[in-house]
């Protein structure tokens, strides 16, 4: 059983080091961004106190997406997001995770406003073009 004890000591040590340091790492981050992100505000608050929010514009023309769909758009947890999509064909816009879906008519524009209250990364895509990715929304 000595082997077991030694091995568990090593594992325990590693665990301790990792916990401490991983904790430090994430601590650095949150102090850097300045806001606590641990608990998102309640859903009821659909209008965020800071009226500004983030505006995102996307254009779909001839099956091509501008700006470059590999981009990441960063917002803070709780921010109000205004997404405007203009498309030359009828399509359906889907924000993953938030499960918001809205149709856009051919040659039309649709605006989706929502509170970004779930932290994480979310793909925003159009269903009728391939590949359908419009951009990745990063909420932190």
């Amino acid at each position, binding site marked *: 059983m*000595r*082997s*077991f004890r*030694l*091995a*568990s000591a*090593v*594992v325990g040590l*590693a*665990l301790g*080091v*990792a*916990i401490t*340091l*991983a*904790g*430090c*790492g*994430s601590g*650095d*981050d*949150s102090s850097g961004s300045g806001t606590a*992100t*641990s*608990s*998102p505000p309640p*859903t009821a608050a659909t209008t965020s106190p800071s009226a500004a929010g983030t505006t995102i514009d996307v254009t779909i023309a001839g099956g091509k997406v501008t700006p*470059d*769909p*590999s981009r*990441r758009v960063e917002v803070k947890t709780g921010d109000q997001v205004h997404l405007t999509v203009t498309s030359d064909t009828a399509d359906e816009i*889907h*924000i*993953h*995770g*938030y*499960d*918001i*879906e809205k149709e856009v008519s051919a040659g039309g524009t649709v605006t989706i406003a929502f509170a970004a*209250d*779930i*932290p*994480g*990364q*979310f*793909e925003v*895509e159009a*269903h009728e073009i*391939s*590949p*359908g*990715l419009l951009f*990745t929304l*990063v909420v*932190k």
Partner: protein
Amino acid sequence: MVGQLAGSAHQGSTFFAHGIGGRQDLPISFSQVLVGAVAALVISFGALGLLWRTSRLRGAAAGRALPPGIQRGLDSPTLRWGLRMLGLLLTGFVAVAAFLGPDLATNPTATWIYVLFWVGLVPASLLFGPVWRQLNPIRTIHLGVSRLLQTAPDRGMLPLPRRLGYWPAAASLFSFTWLELVAPDRATTPVIRLYFLVYFFVHLLAAVVYGSHWFDRCDGFEAYSSLIGHMSPLGRRNDGQLVLRSPFNGLDALVPASGLVATVCVLLGSTAYDGFSSSATWVRTTTSSSLSPEVLGTLGLAGFVAAAIVTYSIATWLAGTLGTESRRALPGAFVHSIIPIAAGYVIAHYFSLFVFEGQHALILASDPLVKGWNLFGTAHRAIDYTVISASTIAVVQVLAIVLGHVMGVISAHDRAVRLFPPRQAVAGQLPLLALMICYTVGGLLLLFTS
């Protein structure tokens, strides 16, 4: 929070176009990458200098026997049949949803298969050992078929060829990870139905031909559950007793066979590919390439699995060259030490998915046929994204990768001092240490860039 979950049903062919669930983890911070990498380096070389010089693990001979009463309970036909029935019941539930329910995003099939079953198999096996062996509905149905044919279930028509080893499991796991990560419309019920119908008949037929031993190493899900289950505190000693044992002895008890390296590398490579496929680099490649996403995805997945096999093979070849006087190749001798690393990757990549989409699976389960039912009273719930915070997820991810590394290093160290003569034992371990550091830093970088 996600109020429209239950109401957002639509023709769901593209709903899950990028896999299950809409949320992906935030990248870990660079300081966490550094800390994880430094910890891995320090632990690796610390282990080289500090750990024992002669092998201490006793594999299948180790472990403290459980009290006879508990052993009798765990081995009782009542429990065994209970688990078999549970396996049939759960499979039947998903089958009803898959075959009778509409192909909508609110059909629970995809979430049950990819999240509760596939990801859930890992924590279940880590805790209790090879659980899928007990639950596997194909095994139970094969048992029934054998009764009907009046044959002994473990005796087929032909002996199971030895050289098959784990190769069928490697193939079936590769096919499943391809379904999960690459296949077009992979979250729709027709695609899932087709895959599992083929899976069912292939494995049932093979078991009829070769006997129930087929499932042990050839059914991908059983092999997966058994391999991960080697880290469980619950094990069976070589004298047949159910024992509590350290995960290191559990891993040490794994018997190498042909195809085992490939099986473990499929798990490692597919998880790494899944992380890589959400990186900006890969997204840019797929959006600008003239190749279809399926072709690119297949190449990417196969490439990552091949990279895992090639790097592992080079490391063990070098270990054999540096560590033994006979310079023999040691392909299977260290593969048990890669299992905790693969498990660490899986936990790092799918822990939050399991916590969030697992809730989704239970919500959807209340209405399996999408008729507005509320069987279990969960239908109107929404996923609670506050159960774990983004910073907790990041800590779990780094810990899983680093702990997997530590367990890998210790397992490989003990095997090396057993196999190699003392003078060459340190040199013989260096290629494997380098390999593990590469896997670990690679895993951390995948979490950083995704």
